[in-house]
């Protein structure tokens, strides 16, 4: 099942995996694969595809674990960033069938029961981000959130929101800069 690890324990296991420790790597997998699967599935909306990308993600994690620096990144962020980027790369590689139905359908197919690993140290980041997102206009907050969750480009966002591309870029760039100053204040 899914053991719960603290941020520090996860960082240690990831570091050991970077030294070639397979048992530690399995610990990382057990603690994080459900979260990363959620990220892949959210973006790809296809369970089979998401599992392929998940496999690829952990292969990358194994190869890159030695470059993980706990003083610069939190382990779960580092892992999710790889999973999300891999999923987006796959989404944009041309092949996949992007389903137009709501992503919730895909989750219905899966066991979406909350897991202990949800507890992994994302709550601080989440509350800070949410506090700062609340300072943005509704529409700007909405498109930044959609961009992260669905992994879509400016072009796709402009089409979805039915606004000119330049307008969408302006919303997001201004929103990002405001977020940044809020998050670092």
């Amino acid at each position: 099942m899914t053991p719960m690890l603290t941020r520090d324990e996860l960082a240690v296991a990831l570091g050991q995996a970077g030294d070639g420790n397979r048992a530690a790597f399995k610990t990382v997998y057990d603690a994080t694969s459900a979260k990363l699967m959620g990220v892949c599935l959210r973006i790809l909306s296809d369970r089979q595809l998401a599992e392929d990308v998940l496999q690829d993600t952990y292969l990358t994690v194994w190869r890159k674990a030695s470059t993980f620096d706990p003083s610069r990144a939190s382990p779960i962020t580092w892992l999710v960033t790889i999973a999300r980027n891999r999923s987006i790369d796959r989404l944009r590689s041309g092949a996949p069938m992007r389903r137009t139905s709501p992503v919730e359908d895909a989750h219905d197919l899966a066991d979406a029961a909350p897991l202990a690993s949800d507890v992994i140290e994302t709550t601080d980041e989440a509350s800070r981000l949410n506090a700062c997102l609340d300072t943005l206009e509704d529409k700007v907050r909405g498109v930044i959130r959609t961009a992260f969750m669905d992994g879509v480009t400016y072009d796709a966002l402009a089409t979805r929101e039915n606004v000119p591309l330049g307008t969408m870029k302006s919303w997001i760039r201004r929103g990002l800069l405001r977020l940044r100053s809020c998050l670092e204040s």
Partner: protein
Amino acid sequence: MTDIPPEDDANALAGELALRVLSPEEERAARARQASDPAFAAEVETWNEHLAGFIAEIPSVQPSARVWPRVEASISPAANDNRAGFWRMWALGSTGLLAASLVAVAVLVARPAPAPIVQTAPAGGVTRVATISMTEGGAPVVALAYDTVTGNLFIAPTKAMDTTSAVPHLWLVKPDGAGVQLIGAIDGSAASHHQLRDALASTAGQAVAVAISMEAPGHEPAADKPDGPVVATGELQAL
């Protein structure tokens, strides 16, 4: 956006890259900057941390039990000794082959390349070089020079490779353990010239090493993983 001060531009671009909203062309340019500009790369990492707050909203989904055995198989000692372990070794350290590389380039320059190619090659300068040596025994087998301006890649075997049962394929080893990128099959017996374009040219400009795998005749491996044994490697050095 003319209404955003220039000093905020890099910051916003780093955020756009982390968010992945850029067009493919813009993203390529931003990735190149990320690879060459540590301050910008740090900005991108900071953005990844900031945006990670969204993760809490994404429900976890248990992957099927099929996934771990496939992951485990791909990192098994057998696969690892041949591939991942090798790339890991390259990601962790290097062996300082600059002197050998310089000698090799002298050899390469002295060796006439096919005339038409040289005459039509755009102006530029050779800026990255490598000597590729056998992992067993360390004998140099290929001298390589890459011009980051024009994308011209020159490959000169220093001795004929045994290609009777397998075809040598050239790989770029990306920085930070980011894996490998296939350039393609190479001629193991004569000097050759390749023109790298677009993403491949950019990857070649940033790669830390090159390597040669031996692939079964007629088989083209995936672009990010050799199937045959890696027999030779060399560190890429800036001139």
